[in-house]
């Protein structure tokens, strides 16, 4: 079983358009959406939820005002400024439990915090594991790990050769969580100075891991000049640019109709097909 992870550094470069197209092109796979902050893959894959699971993130401290003698020790030891006037602000609380350990009155408890849900769903293109983080909740790194683990388990049980994972933007905790153990990483960039800058940072991160890393340039013809610079940069870094997808109105139409872009014939669909051919071959090369 191989996991192909799609990330981007900069957001909005086309991860979900490409992941959903791969979902349509790859016959036998489990899909995972680990952009749990803003999960969009379900909009294109039209899932029917089969299983719902609760996700508990870090615990939160709660102060029992009956037992509290207002000694103030908890406020002194909290490094996250989460306690104000002997009340815990759940948004600032990181769940470290130092206040709970130190309270001489045992007035503080650490309570489980339901921070989201994750789902196993059927779609016209196969099984999708996805999640929804609760409003203003933290811990997306842990939820990423949970979704990936569930997708991999399903693939192993059913002897499915691929897991295709729609990743988060950035280089922080959720991306690090998504990268650990991914076999192939496809970084989707666009021909802009911002995306080029963000690509450099994301490559610094992927170099820590052992995955095979490839780059594809989405909407490359919107700036041939910037595309050229990205190609030169990747060449210098020893990273293959394995796809260049042209700007194509058909992609916008497909997404607007909730369909993977590869289903709408056009130059972008053809380029995505070629990209998948190369990725699926490259992913098998040891």
């Amino acid at each position, binding site marked *: 079983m191989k996991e192909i992870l799609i990330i981007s550094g900069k957001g*909005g470069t086309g991860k979900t358009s490409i992941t959903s197209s791969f979902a349509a092109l790859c016959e036998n796979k489990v899909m995972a959406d680990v952009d749990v902050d803003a999960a969009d893959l379900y909009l294109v894959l039209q899932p029917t939820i089969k299983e719902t699971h609760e996700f508990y993130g870090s615990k939160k401290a709660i102060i029992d005002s009956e037992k509290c003698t207002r000694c103030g020790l908890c406020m002194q030891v909290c490094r996250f400024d989460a306690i104000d006037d002997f009340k815990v602000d759940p948004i600032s609380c990181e769940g470290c439990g130092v206040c709970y*350990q130190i309270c001489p009155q045992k007035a503080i408890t650490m309570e489980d915090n339901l921070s989201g849900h994750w789902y196993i769903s059927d779609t016209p293109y196969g099984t999708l594991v996805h999640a929804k983080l609760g409003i203003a909740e933290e811990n997306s790194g842990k939820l990423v790990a949970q979704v990936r683990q569930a997708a991999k388990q399903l693939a192993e049980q059913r002897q499915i050769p691929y897991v295709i994972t729609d990743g988060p933007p950035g280089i*922080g905790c959720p991306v690090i969580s998504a990268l650990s153990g991914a076999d192939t990483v496809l970084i989707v960039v666009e021909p802009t*100075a911002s995306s080029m800058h963000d690509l450099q940072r994301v490559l610094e991160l992927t170099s820590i891991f052992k995955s095979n890393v490839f780059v594809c340039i989405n909407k490359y013809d919107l700036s041939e000049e910037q595309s050229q610079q990205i190609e030169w940069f990747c060449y210098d870094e020893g990273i293959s640019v394995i796809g260049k997808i042209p700007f194509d109105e058909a992609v916008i139409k497909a997404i607007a109709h909730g369909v993977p872009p590869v289903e709408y014939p056009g130059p972008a669909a053809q380029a995505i097909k070629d990209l998948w051919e190369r990725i699926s071959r490259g992913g098998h090369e040891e």
Partner: protein
Amino acid sequence: MMIAIASGKGGTGKTTITINMALSLHERRDVQVLDCDVEEPNAAIFLNPQFSESEEISIPIPSVDNELCTLCGRCAQVCAFHAITVLGSHLLTFPELCHGCGGCMLFCPTGAITEKPQGIGIIESGLAQNIPFVQGRLNPGSTATSTLIKEVRRRANDRDIVLIDAPPGTSCPVIASVAKTDFCLLVTEPTPFGLNDLTLAVEMVKALNVPLGVIINRSGANDDIIKEYCDKNDIPILMSIPFDRQFAACYAKGIPLVKAFPEWKRAFQELWDNIERRLNA
């Protein structure tokens, strides 16, 4: 006044709005820009600031004196993040899991644990065309995004207007950037992805009790999906910027919209006037 520019979906135009607002307002108002998208900071590409200061930011992580450690395991018992553990005759630490809460040091009965700094990133400050500018850059591999964002925000000065360029999404880093600001601008695009992520972002901003308005970027034929949602939820749409290949070409090269098309300054000034009216109402 502190304004956060955020979005659920990435790549909708947060940086575009932030830098063009700053460039349109700074001649008549005192503006500071904070780039809080510390994982992928992009505002500097457009503003070309001259940095006069660079600070390394670190969090405290445990440092163990093996002479004093009795391997009692109290530290491992109190650590909620599994960042310290006794393995055989060794005490092992995992700095990448450490949140810097100080619990292990506090509860060690023999005083074997002290703290040492672990770098998480840098904060650079300077001027961009006379606009005070601060940005954070997270070290690749660090997970302390929110801690670095809070450090960037501590460098907000008493300027008239402080603009925060927030990271995308709806979880911790975004909350760290938007919480306790005076107003949040949510930038979206008129696509099903844009709408879905806007909905999530609106719920997050409302939970933080920050007043908000929406900007539609790359607006065009499909704006109705955003307008209907905003109408239904009583959210003001404060600006629309049409999709234009020339605008996209400027962005691609790192040229601010109001530099190439100065007539857009007025729209950003009006955007600010509108926000100010709402805040004073």
